[in-house]
């Protein structure tokens, strides 16, 4: 999956944290989401944090009962990049 770095019209940058990001300036890092096991042990759920960047999706579960954790992690990043960083 392609990594997305968004530059707002005011020049500020928002992306998902990665160790290989370029040094662009002062960085603030905050939780965007979590992947947690379902209570009944049947797969994984993806939950967005209360971070203001998550907007109307704040605190929402965006995927449930994903069987493979790896798939849940991929869905997490895809959703944030598409719906939060690109705002589609």
């Amino acid at each position: 999956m392609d990594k997305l770095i968004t530059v707002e019209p005011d020049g500020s940058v928002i992306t998902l944290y990665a160790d290989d990001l370029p040094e662009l300036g002062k960085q603030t890092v905050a939780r965007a989401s979590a992947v947690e096991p379902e209570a009944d042990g049947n797969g994984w759920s993806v939950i967005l944090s209360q971070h203001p960047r998550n907007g109307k999706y704040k605190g929402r579960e965006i995927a449930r009962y994903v069987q493979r954790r790896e798939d849940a992690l991929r869905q997490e990043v895809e959703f944030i990049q598409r719906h939060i960083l690109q705002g589609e």
Partner: protein
Amino acid sequence: MSHFSEIKVNFTDAQMLVDALVAVGVAREKIECHAEPQQVLDYRGQPTKYRMPNGDVGHVIIRRKHLPSGHNDIAFHLDREKGSTALICDYARDRSGYNDKWLGKVTQEYVAAQTKKHYEKLGKKVYRVNDVVTGRAHLFVKAS
């Protein structure tokens, strides 16, 4: 688990800043680029002291002779530790559009170039998509 990384951009590469200014329409020959910061002048040709107690200085400067009448020099002071400073007088901001919106476009160009350079060194390609509705620039780093 993912984390947002929000970055307040700090101009540190003078040549890349010059390229960004050119990308938003400033003629390259109108831009000075100095290793050591130079004095900024007001519309009368007098040294300014608005932001720095010993006189405003900049590494990248568009001199007032290249700007409409009544403008001070537009300058950028680069400081890796304290952060970069854009020195733009209110007159230029209000009358000629050298405002925060313009500065945002300059910053977008700078970030795009810096990001491309960074990832190309790592052997990765970057492509850009501009969202004309939101004004955002999206930089995609190709998965290898």
